[in-house]
């Protein structure tokens, strides 16, 4: 796992370095600081016994929920949404931590209540609330991306917790209907615009479709072998907005081409497979659900980010784990990896 982690460092280095020659030195350095901090946190957490984590799972959930609530009341507005919490010199994005809180709470809940039972409708009420409360709060910020992520993480976890196939079907239909209703009544104008743009980005190439098109151009122009390290024209000439955060994957593709992306995706895939394998080989059920949850966080982030950048999904602001700039999300992944390592270590101890 540490090997994969090292490659992660390399990826991070490569991608953030692409930004440095456009006056983003400060960001680059701060990203390294965040990264080291995350590694430290991960190592620290890896020494904690999973049992301790289990004991404090609900505290983690309630703590992050509190932070999200705090943001709602007094957050800093950034990029059209209120997401930041500023405490002294530290700017936090609690909605990032909320994902961990949710995973912890659900893992604990599923372990204690009917751990062996296949889940039906009635069994979803309380987990639904655990997921629903923070989701609503995050969406209200408004941060639809994180809200959806919480939902997706929840879905993957209940799927793991043997949700009945019949229930899955019914939920699918309900989801579809409510999705349509949501679109018509629940979405803000800029969110709707993103969906329109997704369907036909060229309709408004200079306006709302701009990001999608420029991102596709960046990826496509990498062709098989890429333009080479630090040679991204789309990024260095600022054609892509936020190229150090959400669109970092596009820059990576532009510089390293299709082979580069295959390599990167395989890395992620190996990482996820390793986590799934870990989840299936631990002795304690809580650890297993927890690992699946953490894996979900990573997976959804990676997948949604890659899919949106390459034009498979509409553009929503979701960072790519370990590659995008952003302290809070980096820290979240640090904690996640730390927990995974802790679980992995505990397994070795018992063996």
């Amino acid at each position: 796992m540490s090997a994969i982690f090292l490659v992660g460092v390399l990826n991070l280095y490569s991608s953030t370095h692409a930004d440095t020659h456009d006056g983003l030195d400060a960001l680059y350095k701060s990203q390294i600081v965040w990264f080291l901090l995350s590694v430290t946190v991960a190592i620290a957490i890896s020494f904690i016994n999973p049992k301790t984590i289990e004991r404090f799972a609900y505290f983690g959930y309630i703590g992050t929920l509190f932070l999200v609530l705090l943001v709602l009341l007094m957050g800093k507005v950034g990029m059209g949404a209120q997401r930041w919490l500023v405490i002294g010199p530290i700017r936090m994005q609690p909605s990032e931590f909320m994902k961990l809180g949710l995973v912890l709470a659900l893992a604990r809940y599923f372990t204690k209540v009917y751990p062996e039972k296949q889940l039906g409708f009635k069994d979803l009420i309380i987990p639904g609330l655990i997921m629903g409360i923070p989701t609503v709060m995050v969406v209200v910020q408004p941060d639809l991306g994180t809200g959806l992520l919480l939902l997706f993480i929840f879905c993957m976890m209940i799927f793991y917790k043997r949700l009945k196939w019949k229930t899955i079907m019914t939920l699918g239909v309900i989801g579809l209907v409510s999705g349509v209703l949501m679109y018509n009544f629940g979405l803000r104008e800029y969110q709707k615009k993103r969906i329109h743009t997704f369907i036909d980005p060229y309709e408004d190439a200079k306006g709302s479709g701009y990001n999608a098109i420029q991102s596709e151009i960046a990826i496509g122009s990498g062709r098989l072998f890429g333009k080479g390290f630090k040679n991204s024209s789309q990024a260095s000439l600022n054609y892509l907005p936020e190229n150090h955060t959400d669109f970092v994957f596009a820059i990576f593709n532009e510089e390293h081409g299709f082979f580069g992306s295959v390599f990167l995706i395989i890395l992620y895939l190996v990482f996820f497979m390793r986590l799934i394998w870990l989840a299936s080989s631990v002795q304690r059920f809580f650890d297993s659900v927890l690992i699946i949850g953490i894996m979900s966080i990573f997976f959804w982030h990676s997948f949604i980010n890659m899919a949106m950048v390459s034009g498979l999904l509409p553009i929503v602001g979701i960072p790519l784990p370990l590659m995008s700039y952003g302290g809070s999300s980096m820290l979240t992944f640090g904690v996640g990896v730390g927990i995974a390592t802790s679980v992995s270590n505990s397994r070795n101890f018992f063996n």
Partner: protein
Amino acid sequence: MFGEEELVKIHKERATLISYIITAAFGMVLARLWYLQVYKGETLHNYSIQNRLRKEVVWAPRGLIYSRDDQLLVDNIPRFDAILTPQFLLDKEETLAKLAKILSTDVAGIEAIMKKNSNQARYRPIIIKKNITFEELAQIETQNADLPGISVDTFISREYRDKDIGAHLLGYISEISQVQLPKLRERDKTEYRLGDFIGQFGIEEQLDKYLRGENGHEFVEVDARGRRKRYINTDNLFKGIEDEKPLSGMNVKLTIDRDMQIAAYKALEGKVGGVIAVDINSGEVLSMVSRPSFDPSQFSRGLTPEYWRSLVGNTHHPLRDRNIQEHFSPGSTFKAFSAIAAFEEGQIDEHTEINCNGTFRLGRRVYHCWKKGGHGAVNLVRALRESCNIYFQKTANKMDIDDIAKYAKAFGLGSRTGISLPREVSGLIPTKEWKKKRFGQEWQAGETLSISIGQSYVLTSTIQMAISFAAIANGGKIYRPYVVKDIFDSEGELVKTFTPELLSQVDIKNPKTLKFVREGLFQVVNNPKGTAFYRRGQGIMMAGKTGTSQVKSASADKIYQRCENMDYDSRHHGVFVGFAPYDNPKIAAAVIVEHGCHGSSAATPVAEAVITEYMKKYQPEMYLKNLEKDKEIRESWIKSIRAAKPATPATADE
């Protein structure tokens, strides 16, 4: 109940399913990447290059214009404008503050300019300051990175060295307007674009296709905000994309002499009118000046509203060219052609004397001589010298208008000379047929009398007059006047050269005709009784004819009213046409001074100034010899005054 490990085991099925889902999801991403990077890779790669490259026009340097003596008349000088593109402004306040500091103005001033242009699209640049200094230019360029939205527009300004002098001849360039675009495209079969510069007047218009050259283009790397990047760092990406160097326009050498232009311009100081001088033996135009004038440099970068108002508001119409684009009644200068017609048709010879008692009655109308009481018995030479109306009217009365017209036309009057400048007017020599066509009426005998002294329908331009007098001097050779001597390419290779073009030879049967007409013209200037004697100049041996072109026909009681006492708009135009030196003619000049009242006082000095400049510069030996002759004339005149004591010199009039 299950044990912990069994719990994990019964969930293993789902874990496997999850791993399938994940693999499938990444498979989709990979497929998409394959599609983008491999299948559409080339296309998108080209997009990315287009994205970062902006094709910028590199203006071809327009050809330069030189005078016949190789003095530079029209030059291209780079000027720089500070421009601002609102779309690319990041931090408006900060940027404006920095810019204001560089340009040493205040933010409010810049904001006022922006506000004035706020109705245009945000991506269109606004000129903040025209013609910035090199220092300002350097500051903006070096701070480029800190000034998003600010850039410098390089502008090649067309600069006319002598500004107003000869502006009508040189013309000007300006941007093709929306209205002109389709017409010009049709006319030249060229895909002009809006904003292209094109010659719109004079030489600039006439020789536009030579002067213009061909614009090139270059690709510059720009970022998403349109800022130029200094380096193109990945050269391998730009294979097959090449800049195209502009092709410089051709340089032009005119037949015009710069010093004569300056002399002519000075001589027209305070006057409204024009002068044109041609080489008698080639038709080369040596000088061509019209006043009031304008500064063509102002046009090449877009006129300021103030300057435009000053041009349009001027009642003397500075944009009008008085030499080839306007015509007027030639007045008494036309008598030279009446004389030639009468002589050739056998109506008169050098001895024919006609009595002038001041009036001539034809039917119910009474025609007056300008001299109250008349000239007495006059022959041809005297009639020309003293510009006796009655002599020519009595002669013309015996003739057919078409016979007079035949000679006038043969000398090139009443039709375009074919000078290589745009919008030449044709003038008019009336005939019976013309009148029938124009008015549906028969020719009146009285009209012939008016025509014979150059009034009424007859209209000529100074260029026609100069060419026709040149023909009188050179024995009837009509040359096509031309203003361009040579065209060179930018390397100095001769591309095209223009040689004299003899259009026709006037058929003069009687060898005495031109001899005596010339004698008359000589005496106009050099005989103490001649109408232009007091303006004859020194060292030029000029022959010529004064004239007044009636603007409004005066009623009988006002015929002898002093012209200066009339309303400005009713005053006669003063005209003079002449050639020099008399015994070896080189140069002919024609002058019109609008509302100048007299040909002698208003127009003659202009011709004298231009011809004097010519003689000094090009015929210095002849000039010195002529000075001697002038001295003799002067001495004999003084002697004659002393002999005839109570002599009252003729008031210089016609």
